[in-house]
């Protein structure tokens, strides 16, 4: 890899160098923060995924050093490879933000807006996407598409009403399991994810479809409605598993293990192992090992500070990561102009105090102590 010349690509005024064959999305993820386009269907660990949801559309304002013509249409950044000298506009392009708002609207017109009773709430990619790029109201005034719930075997429940047809689970079932019995029926807006004549899915790795699902369409029946994710405490753990890598995240409340998932990185994808393979986990680890004694606990898992999951754990039992800030780099070094520094007037808002360092519920005393 190191012998290959690196390509230079500029995304939102930030220049990165990536090896040939990298997609624009992966290059943007290297920059991180808001510059990385959202992706609902693309999953870097699944071959052939991406290009479908159109949330990652970006504008290519300069094709490459050799051919500087801009691309006429917005391109799906997950499936377009970078060229040397390419210039990409993501959050700096009004065309992109407009098209993305349109895509979010399209994705939401048939998605039930019942997050309070949805099991995925708190870790739902569509929820994050609509929070960041959506509008406050809907212009859709018709009945939404609904389906009945289906059990795909003893562990997985499929609720097509919530599905956004990203095809991730189809690729997962196709690439992790040997029999092809999970696919798409029908076409258009009446298409649905289904198994061959309502067969149950009996494969030791089929549980991974739950992890790849960006919304609450595929849920874990051993966990469904038992708890909300933000009340749970994620911990890294491992065990000797004869089938899979055995490296998982346990979601505990007190001593009780509520659910087991694969370890997910900051983009919501299952992490890679040291040898480059993906840390998919088997059904035994996921659904049956639900006692702390089954596992060797490694310690709390780092959760993004923006995620609701980190909010309930000020005791410091959950480590938090601070998301990459790209604002000044995108604006060519310009700092945001402060109209008023809240810290100069507020009694309680003090940036040097980390909320996660405060033990227990915080009071005014936590902020006034040590202040002149």
């Amino acid at each position, binding site marked *: 890899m190191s012998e290959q010349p690196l390509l230079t690509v500029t995304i939102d005024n930030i220049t990165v160098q990536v090896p040939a064959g990298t997609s624009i999305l992966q290059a943007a993820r290297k920059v991180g923060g808001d510059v990385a386009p959202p992706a609902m269907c693309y999953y870097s660990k699944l071959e052939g995924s991406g290009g*479908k949801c159109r949330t990652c559309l970006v504008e290519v304002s300069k094709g490459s050093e050799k051919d500087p013509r801009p691309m006429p249409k917005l391109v799906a950044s997950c499936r377009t490879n970078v060229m040397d000298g390419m210039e990409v506009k993501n959050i700096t392009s009004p065309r992109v933000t407009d098209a993305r708002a349109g895509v979010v609207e*399209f*994705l939401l017109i*048939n998605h039930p807006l019942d997050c309070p009773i949805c099991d995925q709430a708190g870790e739902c990619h569509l929820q994050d996407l609509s929070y960041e790029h959506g509008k406050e109201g809907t212009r859709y005034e018709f009945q939404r598409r609904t389906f009945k719930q289906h059990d795909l075997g003893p562990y997985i429940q499929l609720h097509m009403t919530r599905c956004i*047809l990203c095809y991730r689970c189809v690729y997962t079932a196709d690439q992790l399991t040997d029999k092809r019995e999970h696919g798409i029926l029908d*076409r*258009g*807006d009446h*298409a649905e994810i289904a198994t061959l004549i309502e067969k149950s899915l009996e494969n030791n790795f089929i549980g991974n479809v739950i992890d790849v699902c960006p919304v609450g369409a595929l849920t874990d029946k051993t966990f469904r409605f038992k708890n909300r994710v933000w009340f749970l405490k994620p911990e890294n753990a491992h065990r000797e598993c004869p089938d899979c890598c055995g490296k998982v995240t346990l979601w505990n409340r007190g001593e009780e293990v509520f659910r087991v998932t694969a370890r997910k990185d900051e983009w919501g994808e299952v992490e890679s192992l040291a040898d480059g393979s993906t840390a998919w986990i088997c059904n035994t680890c996921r659904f049956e090992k639900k006692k702390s004694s089954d596992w060797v606990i490694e310690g709390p898992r780092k959760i993004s500070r923006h995620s609701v999951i980190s909010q309930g754990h000020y005791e410091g039992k959950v480590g938090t990561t601070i998301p990459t800030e790209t604002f000044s780099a995108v604006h060519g070094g310009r700092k945001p102009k402060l109209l008023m520094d809240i810290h100069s007037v507020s009694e309680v808002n003090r940036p040097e105090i980390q909320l996660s360092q405060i033990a227990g519920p915080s009071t005014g005393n936590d902020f006034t102590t040590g202040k002149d």
Partner: protein
Amino acid sequence: MGMKLLLEKAHVEGIRHFEAYRREGGYRSVEKALKEMSPETIVEEVKKSGLRGRGGAGFPAGMKWSFIAKPEGVPRHLVCNADESEPGTFKDRYLMEFLPHLLLEGLIVSSYALGSHATYIYIRGEYAWIATILETAIAEAKANGMLGNNILGSGFDCEIYVHRGAGAYICGEETALIESLEGKRGNPRIKPPFPAIQGVWMRPTVVNNVETLAAVVPIIIMGGEEYAKIGVGKSTGTKLISACGNINTPGVYEIDMTISVEEFIYSDEYCGGIANGKRLKACIPGGSSVPILPANLLLKTAKGETRYMNYESLSDGGFVSGSMMGSGGFIVLDEDQCIVKNTYTLARFYRHESCGQCSPCREGTGWMEKILWRLENGEGKESDIDLLWDIQRRIEGNTICPLGDAAAWPVAAAIRHFRDEFEWHVREPQEAKRRNYGLAHYADPIHVPVAG
């Protein structure tokens, strides 16, 4: 009388079978190509002819052929796109039904030019009887040494297979067609890679329309330069137009692209005028996907020039005041037709035929259909018209394949040219249910602003 290159012999007795076709001078181009020409010279001739793809996009066929990758040891394929499903287009059906050997002749020559030893005809499932006609024709050609191993002693081997689709409009898109041909779900692929690099089974593939491949036959016989002299500008050769709607004589006509739209609609040789003595209101000149034009913009361009039946003239003015040649499905609407209803029908079609792969098309087509249904049934609101415009704007160009554009254009053009009719449906819902909006001013002469 216009020049006929393809359909000249269409009504000769028994032309569907090999003997009659051969007696009438058929398969001369195969003899000429295989005995006298190299594959490169054939591609060169097709390039010189200026033949444009007849499937809808109008991309130069010779150029498409020259893009095909030629890696060592990898077979190449030619696929004939006979999945003609565009509402209003039925020219390929006519050609294959009456002259199956003309298509085979074009296929053999093109296969030789592209080096395809296994050539496929992907035909839509609804054309069940035509698939049988083609299979009979293939068997006859094979029995007479025009197909199979060592054709006419030239050392070139070629087999043609007929593959029946299952009746999906989306499988007319070339990458969806390739997926379907491979036995998968007909979802369009993300391009690049283009089929010319990785097509059927990841091998270099050229996908051409039936009419394009049939037009290779006269090009080989008369030579590319002679062929380019027919027609006008970049619209060379002849084009099959399938005319339908409120006209006296609907049918498939071969035109040489020099006649005006007015002549095509009103002359007895072609459509024979509007049926029942009515007046022309609007026309969709190239199959359901292309923008609809009101009568005044159809007969004259926005500049006040006569509009002709060719690629350039029909698209004169862009989408603001023009349309497209498309696949040649010429749909004529008289003064009794309701544009809102017509647009709703088209939106329903695209909603039904969207593959559901990418979100703008999957959700947007359904949404547009529901709003149009509401407008058509007198339950619409003034804001619905702007909402429709906004939806189509956000579908167009943001999808994987052109079906999203094809669904957006008819709605956009209907609102652009017939907004008053939409508004009338909102303002007078009871009236709109009872009677049609009629001709209004759509057939009035257009006002051409004069500079100075």
